[in-house]
């Protein structure tokens, strides 16, 4: 707490509460162009302005710290290393939204994070940043930490709200959106940890200042959790607009592929975004180099693009097996599907079984088309985005790596002995080991 204060922490709270009105804070966030860091990339200011404000009804801010996307682990570290930045963001954001009670919904597995957060909250309360009449401004705020049950589906905002209310974590049917009817039926905003933490900086330095960082409509910085076959896995804060190539190969970031191997594929934003082969992740179809930003990664749509998602950057080298990887993801979605609506409940299990069959050498050629068809029938037909998230990796893996799937079917024995390798997806860069 002391250290954070010394480095200018909680200045944003003082600035916001003493000199600004809630609408001014909202205006700054809008100007900053900050976009949701949880995966969808929805502009935060716009989301806040949708919040219904009926008289006499409380409003809530909920922080979504139920981070459980495979490949994403940024929020956990943010909360462990700098819990006060989240709390400060919560105070500022709650003030802007007029919420007097706010919740941080933390994934149940992260016991130690919950302890850290609760300690930090009590510190903030001692200093008078939480509770009644904060800093003499007449604004009250209570902040609660709510541990979740550790279900992936509870990261979906309406399922999170259900879970927060003590019910079964099933996503609600939208509309009504949480901005109209959320926690206890009251207007609610659900934001990611990183988004909320960013708001305090925006308030302190101004939205225009924030908008200068980054590129185009992707403003600011983003935490990227890089993992997979790279030399330096970890969490990197990057300015949006950094070329992907630089992110993977520069020593400042991932430091290249481990063991001097070649790049095969990248899952750019956590398990649920489409996987891209090396040639497409480094350069777009048009031949421009791809940047780490919402727009650039999405360029080419789902045919040749992907999404920034939640920033879980999984790098796979030439020895990775795409079929196995896809099967693994699907197994996860099968396990985590809430079972509420039929396409996702039945479809994820079906895809998992078919992929398992292909991976273990019992597949048929028709299975590949079957997978594409099943994925297409899940996508867009479910209540919440989990169905889409389950369908995209399968669809994209087959789109880009079809011959690897076919090889698994054609050579069942061989596919058990070795991996397919790079094949036609040679990464366009010279091999680093060869240079040395």
């Amino acid at each position, binding site marked *: 707490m002391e250290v954070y204060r010394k480095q200018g922490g909680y200045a944003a709270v003082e600035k916001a509460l003493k000199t600004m009105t809630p609408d001014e804070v909202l205006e700054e966030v809008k100007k900053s162009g900050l976009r949701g860091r949880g995966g969808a990339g929805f502009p935060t200011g716009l989301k806040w302005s949708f919040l219904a404000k009926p008289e006499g009804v409380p409003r809530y801010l909920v922080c979504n710290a139920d981070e459980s996307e495979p490949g994403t682990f940024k929020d956990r570290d943010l909360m462990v290393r700098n819990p006060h930045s989240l709390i400060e963001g919560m105070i500022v954001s709650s003030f802007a939204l007029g919420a007097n009670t706010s919740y941080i919904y933390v994934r149940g597995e992260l016991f130690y994070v919950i302890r850290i957060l609760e300690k930090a909250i009590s510190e903030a309360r001692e200093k008078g940043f939480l509770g009644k009449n904060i800093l003499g401004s007449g604004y009250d705020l209570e902040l609660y930490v709510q541990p979740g049950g550790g279900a992936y*589906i509870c990261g979906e905002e309406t399922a999170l709200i259900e879970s927060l209310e003590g019910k079964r974590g099933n996503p609600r049917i939208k509309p009504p959106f949480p901005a109209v009817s959320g926690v206890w039926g009251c207007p609610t905003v659900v934001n990611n940890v990183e988004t909320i933490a960013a708001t305090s900086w925006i308030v302190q330095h101004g939205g225009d200042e924030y908008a200068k960082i980054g590129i185009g409509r992707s403003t600011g910085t983003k935490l990227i959790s890089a993992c997979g076959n790279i030399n330096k896995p970890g969490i990197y804060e990057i300015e949006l607009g950094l070329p992907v190539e630089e992110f993977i190969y520069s020593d400042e970031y991932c430091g290249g592929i481990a063991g001097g191997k070649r790049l095969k594929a990248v899952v750019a934003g956590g398990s649920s975004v489409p996987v891209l082969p090396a040639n497409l992740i480094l350069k777009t179809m048009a031949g421009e180099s791809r940047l780490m930003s919402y727009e650039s990664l999405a360029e080419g749509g789902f045919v040749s693009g992907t999404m920034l998602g939640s920033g879980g950057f999984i790098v796979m080298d030439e020895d990775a097996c795409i079929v196995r990887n896809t099967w693994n993801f699907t197994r996860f979605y099968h*396990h985590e599907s809430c*079972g509420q609506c*039929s396409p996702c409940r039945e479809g994820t299990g079906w895809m998992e079984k078919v992929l398992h069959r292909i991976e273990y050498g019992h597949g048929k050629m028709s299975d590949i088309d079957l997978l594409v068809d099943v994925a297409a029938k899940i996508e867009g037909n479910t209540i919440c985005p989990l169905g889409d998230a389950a369908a995209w990796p399968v669809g994209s893996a087959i789109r880009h790596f079809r011959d690897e799937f076919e090889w698994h079917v054609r050579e069942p024995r061989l596919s058990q002995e070795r991996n397919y390798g790079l094949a036609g997806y040679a990464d366009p860069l010279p091999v680093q080991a060869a240079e040395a």
Partner: protein
Amino acid sequence: MSEKYKITIDGVSTEVEPGTTILNAARQIGGDLVPPAMCYYSSLEGSGGKCRTCLVKVSKGSEKDPRPMPKLMASCRTTVMDGMEVQNLTSPEVQEARKGVVEFLLINHPLDCPVCDQAGECKLQDLSYEHGTEATRYEFNRRTFERIDIGDKIQLHMNRCILCYRCVYVANQLTDQRVHGIVGRGDMAEISTYVEKAIDNDFSGNMIDVCPVGALTDKTFRFKNRVWFTKPVWAHRDCDKCCGRVTLWYKGDDVLRVTGRKDEYGEVHEFICNTCRYDKKRTKDWVIEGPAKVERQSVISANHYDSKVVPVIDKR
């Protein structure tokens, strides 16, 4: 409210009260353009949106905002906006998605219709007959559940369940205490009483009526007869617990079972109590009103009355 919203479904226009869902608007028009619904139940608040069979394409959002909706919408939970245009039968996309949903619903369904008491009045049978394909592409073992006993009146066959949540809503909204619910997650979710408690209250029998498939069936009627051999008759009695308006299912002179009265979409609007359902199975308990109206696609109608016999078309 005086103001009415105009909605066009498959080119047929109608005016409905604001707040009506697309599905209910379609039901007001009637006919083939009504989307099928497995989980929506008009008398149960909060039901619907889960099975995804009623998906439709909204090709025009409203008069004010004519943009089409990006995804297919669940018609049972989407309310009508003024000037909305909806495609159901006319959209190949919708038909394709519905086929997919039916396939998903059937991949883990045991398809034990020959021994299932629901056969003949099963919504899933109707649905797969109208929208499904002839053969499944599923080649794995179907999911099975441990059998649990939920009392002496209701038989639970979890393998047949499509998780429409209707019985949960019935227990929530009709009875004082709900003792069963959904346990587990994903495709291993099941209807259960958790510690194998018997479901025992005055209105529990309605779970049987709302179940669209053969997951919840009447133990007192179990294996007695096929529903299409029985004759539905409307009757009523003075009941101090419920409305007392029921359908009696006759075989010869015997009342084999008693159910609530279902409308043409298989929905009961007046729920009945267990006394009427299980204990009054003699003709002298009832005042007979006359033959029940039977819904259009039901095989029950094939054996009785004058109605058209639905020709069996070999789709292959």
